[in-house]
């Protein structure tokens, strides 16, 4: 079937199989930041934004993005660098495989929640699994990042 999707500001038109997943579609367009970590919508590695809202691209059909706008980490280069620097300064990216999906959700949280508490942060991001870090370094990075953001720097 025919779809027309805007990915990171660029419009693509394709004839795709009806069962193609959004994750495979964005990867086929070179957006390799989105990863597959499970097949059961549990890990959060494939998180992208659909119309500005985070979705698990492994559980969304590509055709659902027809006439819509998809954002991956490749489209948020500056924001990724800005928050990523905080993560890097904690050593909390470790293997880095979960980082893009995690960062997509952190950036979505920043847009959605104002001054989130520690509990709200943990809950918002509970669907982003990480096996390396034990989550503490990620939390330190988020707090420092949000603090800087709230100062308007």
């Amino acid at each position, binding site marked *: 079937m025919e779809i027309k999707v805007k990915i990171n500001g660029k419009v693509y038109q394709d004839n795709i199989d009806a069962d193609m997943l959004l994750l495979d579609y964005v990867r086929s367009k070179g957006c390799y930041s989105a990863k597959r*970590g499970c097949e059961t919508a549990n890990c959060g590695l494939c998180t992208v934004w659909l119309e500005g809202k985070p979705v698990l691209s492994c559980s969304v059909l590509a055709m659902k993005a027809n006439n819509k706008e998809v954002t991956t980490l490749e489209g948020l280069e500056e924001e990724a*660098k800005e928050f990523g620097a905080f993560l890097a300064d904690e050593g909390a990216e470790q293997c880095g495989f979960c980082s893009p999906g995690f960062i997509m959700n952190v950036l979505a949280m920043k847009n959605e929640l104002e001054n989130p508490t520690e509990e709200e942060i943990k809950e918002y991001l509970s669907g982003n699994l990480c096996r390396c870090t034990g989550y503490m370094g990620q939390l330190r990075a988020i707090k420092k990042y949000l603090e800087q953001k709230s100062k308007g720097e």
Partner: protein
Amino acid sequence: MRVVNKPIRKKDAMMLVTGKPVYTQDIAPKDCLVVKLLRSPHANAFIEDINTTIAMKVPGIECVLTYKDIPQKRFTMAGQSYPEPSPYDHLILDKHLRCCGDPVAIVAGENEKAVDRALKLIKVKYDVREPLLDFTKAKDNEILVHPEEDFKALCDVGADNKRNLCSTGNFSYGDVNAEFEKCAHIVERTYHTKANSQAMMETFRTYTHMDLYGRLNIVSSTQVPFHVRRILANALDIPKSQIRVIKPRIGGGFGAKQSVVSEVFPAVVTIKTGKPAMMIFSRSESMTNGSPRHEMQIRVKVGSDENGVIKAIDMYTLSNAGAYGEHGPTTVGLTGHKSMSLYAGANAYNFDYDVVYTNTMGGGAYRGYGATQGIFALESAVNELALKLNMDPVKLREKNMTAEGQVMESYYGELCASCALDRCMEKAKEMIGWDEKYPCKDMGNGKVRSVGVAMAMQGSGISNVDVGAVEIKLNDDGFYTLMIGASDMGTGCDTILAQMAAECLECDIDNIIVNGVDTDQSPYDTGSYASSTTYITGMAVVKTCEKIRQQILAEGARLLKTEVENVDFDGQKVYTLDNSSSVTLSEIGYSSYVAGGGCITASESNFSPVSPPPFMVGMVELEIDKLTGQVEIIDYVAVVDCGTVVNTNLARVQTEGGIAQGIGMALYEDIQYTKEGRMINNSFMQYKIPTRLDVGKIRVEFESSYEPTGPFGAKSIGEIVINTPSPAISNAICNATGLIMTELPMTAEKIAMGILENEKN
């Protein structure tokens, strides 16, 4: 120190956090054949007949391979130095299927749909046999997991396939029975630990292609590139010179990728077809046919005098190798040696073990490598001994813990040259508020808060086996290239090795560029496992820097037209001792690139006759709901002695991550099988790993000793950190409820049932 012992950013950090394509699947050629396996639905069966004719007719299918098409040369997938202690019990494709998911056929095609279709069209007639699933009944069982005649063990590990034995052995020091007779208090208990999945976020994956020289290139997510080269040459029966292995970035390993799990399948396809091929394990495959932690049953007997001084320890470990013996004979050893050695003052030790084959998934290496299971058992027994003595478990440990200067008879007779276990205990007590909180506090709402304690140790590399080497080159303009043979799998070894080089060469870390593993270019390194990289390869960096420094001095002296005795090097320039003239490193670099200048490059390898243990103390505060048995982790405190901390950030994150994994193992991670031997919980939906809501607060501090044989006094950090949660949480559960937990995971159900049982009595 300027660069070592600092929180330096990982060299690859910014590429990773901006989502750049750096992992195996991201960089694979787009025309790779998709490779998948037809996997056995039975735990024990023989292929009577297999027909691939129809499957081959599916459009887009390149090849369908069965055992008839594959070299029948047994090997082990364990990434260990040759000769491997793991028996040669594996074939790429075998007529005998020994566990559910064992590969029956390899299918390669142009796209996933075609491959999936072909998989369904392979006709197989199985001769299904009764599986052997209970590892406590495996030894001398009439069902043989490896009845084949060509089974062989290269090392004397006590393997006997006609008895289902992967390995058997004993260690003894002193007379335990005589000591136990003199003991005032004895605890004897059997513990059961389960198989766990490493659950690294990037599953097993490899792509292969033929390069312009006609050699097989393997790009793989592996911890052991050099072992992959050797193992594949064995398995494929081709010369090692025809294989090149490249390691890109890795999405976590934790030991899983110390076995050759995915590499052989695309490699066979590329050899047969000449085309690039890629195999990506699904999460479910990674769960059902990966390389999990060995399930074990461990009997511990520990005795003390009336004052709580431990006199003797006796342990027997029965380990479930599963269908294949990867890492079976070696993991079991650590259950004894790396637990009993926490108590070096005992007069006698005995340790016996059997590793048995069953028709469950073959085990492998998982962070902690047997020490985790052994420490859970022994530390739990020591906590029970404290209970018997009516003594604070911290005090009992303070009386008995291994100290610097002691000879550890149960640890290969090694001298404990560096140990700050006493300071770790003191610090942990203070951080968690042990004296105020021990043993528990009833919260008045049906919940009890309690604390628990455990100690742990590990090794630093495998003594007299592991080898690490690096090469350093000086380039024009005076920057260095550090060639590394150890696998950075997210742990940050590329960075910490560069830190050490920058420290030695008195330069900025940005002046050292690193080059990860390519077996054609990197100096030989056994690989990243056994907590070896910082300690073993780190020392190779120190040695190499000493050598290259001499070359820089010599070249500087030549350019300054003086003797080498008259000059020194400060990292930026070589200068005459009378300060009359100097030449910059940049100039030396340029001069080495033109006629007359010498090539400035050095490579040193390193091994160690000892494996100095890091030590740590873990303390947990948790809350138990007495009605439901639900455990909530409130606070976890870890104080680690890994010698000098090379990178304070990375060591901290390693510790936090290890503890989170350990919490999962303690409370809910458990590989379960149906009565037919099929794994039940083969997804993250069912096999739950901790989320950020489950780990409470984890706090880490370091109390460093100085290891004289390590680089800058460093020991290891990677594995030890997973060892304390199971025994510490068990201790806290006991302090809250009086329950002695003997089986992992300690689920809410087991705790609630235990509380009910207690109330009945």
